[in-house]
């Protein structure tokens, strides 16, 4: 595919396509609602009152802007480029997910919807959704794979404390993709009053666009902050990718800055040569699932295969369609990190900076540890620290052979 001319930030097109990816592959029952959502979002974007309310909540409820922190000891340890961390783990609820949830619940209210549903894997998006539902006084149902419920008991309890109903999904592989199937089934059954808050920059148009837009607050802040601190743009951006909402949020405001190298990190689980990974770009093919065309882990018959990652947040067989497109045109470089490398990145950040990262951004830290030493000392890296690691200490302890 030839690189398009003009801005790389102009997508998607009117039908929600990023190149061959994206689109609206949903049951006909949902089509009128998807089109209505698109119109509502267009109107909201043009409404200064909507933006003002969003900005106010991001500042006073979420705690934005998040700091851009110079990781001095990590930089010294790796002995290469200067490393800055975008501290989205300091947000209310401990991850970037809340940026999107605030935006979507404001849209839901604008559309007169009175009930919220969402899917969740590790529970972070479920907690963020339950949080905004409580804040706005709307009933909320979270779909979560039965297997994930067993693995993530603390987040299940958090969601319940916040007043959400958590529905265990027993179908299929009983993980994130099945939770998304079940959320879509609920939505198609309750279209009249229900708003579906999708957690990542994927799904049918306009979700990939609107989730991205709500997450670009990360990149817009980072751009202003680095210009203020260093007087120039960074040489490299790094972020981890499951569906890819934190990454597109950081990357998007820099896509047209062609001197900024951009690297996304997929989870390669137990290794790309095994079948136990979640790297849909490195190991997948173009296909259609959950309302969009994108790169998917699938067998030769087009049946979706299981993803694996030590990080439940990256454990998904697809990726947002804009990433699939940025990969196809070569603007963003996609690499991967294994479970083992992520665990090393996790411990490295704990030890050098006193920050316990979530296992998702630990993949980005692993990539930084690999790339920074190859760069000059006056070069600059920004890595997205999209979540804190409290939720992962049990998983990490088990992986390190520690009994708590």
């Amino acid at each position, binding site marked *: 595919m030839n690189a398009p001319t003009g801005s790389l930030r102009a997508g998607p097109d009117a039908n929600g396509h990023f190149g061959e990816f994206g689109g609206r592959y949903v049951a006909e029952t949902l089509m009128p609602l998807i089109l209505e959502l698109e119109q509502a979002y267009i109107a909201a974007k043009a409404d200064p009152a909507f933006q003002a309310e969003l900005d106010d909540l991001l500042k006073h409820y979420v705690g934005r802007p998040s700091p851009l922190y110079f990781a001095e000891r990590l930089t010294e340890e790796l002995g290469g480029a200067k490393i800055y961390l975008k501290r989205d783990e300091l947000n209310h609820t401990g991850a970037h997910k809340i940026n999107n949830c605030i935006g979507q619940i404001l849209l839901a209210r604008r559309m007169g919807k009175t009930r919220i549903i969402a899917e969740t894997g590790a529970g972070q998006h479920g907690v963020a959704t339950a949080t905004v539902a409580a804040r706005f006084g709307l009933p909320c149902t979270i779909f979560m794979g039965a297997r994930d419920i067993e693995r993530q008991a603390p987040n299940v309890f958090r969601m319940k404390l916040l007043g959400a109903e958590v529905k265990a999904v027993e179908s299929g592989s009983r993980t994130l993709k099945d939770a998304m199937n079940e959320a879509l089934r609920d939505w198609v059954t309750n279209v009249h009053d229900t708003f579906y808050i999708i957690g990542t920059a994927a799904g049918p148009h306009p979700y990939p666009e609107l989730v991205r837009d709500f997450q670009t607050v990360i990149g817009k802040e980072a751009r202003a902050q680095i210009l203020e601190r260093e007087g120039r743009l960074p040489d490299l951006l790094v972020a981890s990718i499951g569906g890819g909402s934190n990454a597109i949020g950081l990357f998007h405001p820099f896509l047209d800055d062609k001197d900024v190298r951009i690297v996304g990190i997929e989870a390669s689980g137990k290794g790309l040569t095994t079948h136990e990974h979640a790297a849909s770009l490195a190991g997948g093919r173009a296909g259609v699932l959950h309302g969009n065309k994108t790169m998917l882990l699938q067998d030769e018959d*087009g049946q*979706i295969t299981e993803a694996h990652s030590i990080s439940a947040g990256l454990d998904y067989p697809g990726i947002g369609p804009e990433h699939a497109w940025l990969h196809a045109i070569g603007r963003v470089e996609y690499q991967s990190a294994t479970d083992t490398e992520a665990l090393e990145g996790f411990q490295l950040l704990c030890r050098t900076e006193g920050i316990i990262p979530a296992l998702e951004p630990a993949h980005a830290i692993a990539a930084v540890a690999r790339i920074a030493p190859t760069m000059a000392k006056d070069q600059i890296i920004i890595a997205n620290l999209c979540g804190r690691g409290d939720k992962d200490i049990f998983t990490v302890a088990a992986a390190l052979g520690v009994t708590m």
Partner: protein
Amino acid sequence: MSGDRLSTRFAACAAQGRAALVTFVTAGDPDLATSAEILAALPGAGADVIEIGMPFTDPMADGPAIQRGNLRSLAAGTTLRKVLAMVTDFRKADDATPIVLMGYFNPLLAFGPERFAAAAKAAGIDGCIVVDLPPEEAGELAPALAAHGLHLVRLATPTTDAHRLPTVLSGASGFLYYVAVAGVTGANSAAATDVAEAVARLKASTSLPIAVGFGVRTPEQAAAIATHADAVVVGSAIVDAIGAAAEERANDIPARVAAQVAALAQAVRTARTEKAA
């Protein structure tokens, strides 16, 4: 496209003053051999049109019954190629009963739209319903199907308003499938009066036969729909019965399905005369 199996069959049913019975089974459920026997038994039991589900790992528009049918089929090793082979075998004994494949887009995309259309036509398939392929995204499949003389059946739903309907109808062929309830397959039933209104509304905009499905489980429900619609689709109830029979390792699954379909056919065939009487 006159003279093809679908239009011939719908015209024949209309001439008899009755609705057609469309029965849905998932290909390869509970296994390919049994599934082929079920398929062969359907026309004799009274199925006018056969819908065959192509199994998919993530059937997002289906309720628990058909989800389980999909997983039973995949566990038994069903692939799209084997589904097409099964239809080829079926056609050796029956060249009249229309067969419509129903499923999700990804397995077709993986097979290749052009290759699929050619193979489906050669197998004796008459049309396709692709649940997650709305008109806006149909460009990747519709030309290939049309080039091989296969129908792409469109779906209208309770959420399809007057503004949306023309988009649904543009390029629709074979018949129009009315999804009677907003929800997944096997959900609650629609009220017969709502269905009657919807069918009348659709008939004002299209000359295609209207088939009504979702939430039609019993002969009584089928008969109620058959007084208004050109065709009645029954799926989850049959798939549920296959699942229950497979669970108890029954060796007479095709006969059981045939008996169930015969009762549905009887109800559909007499619905309008019963009502008149």
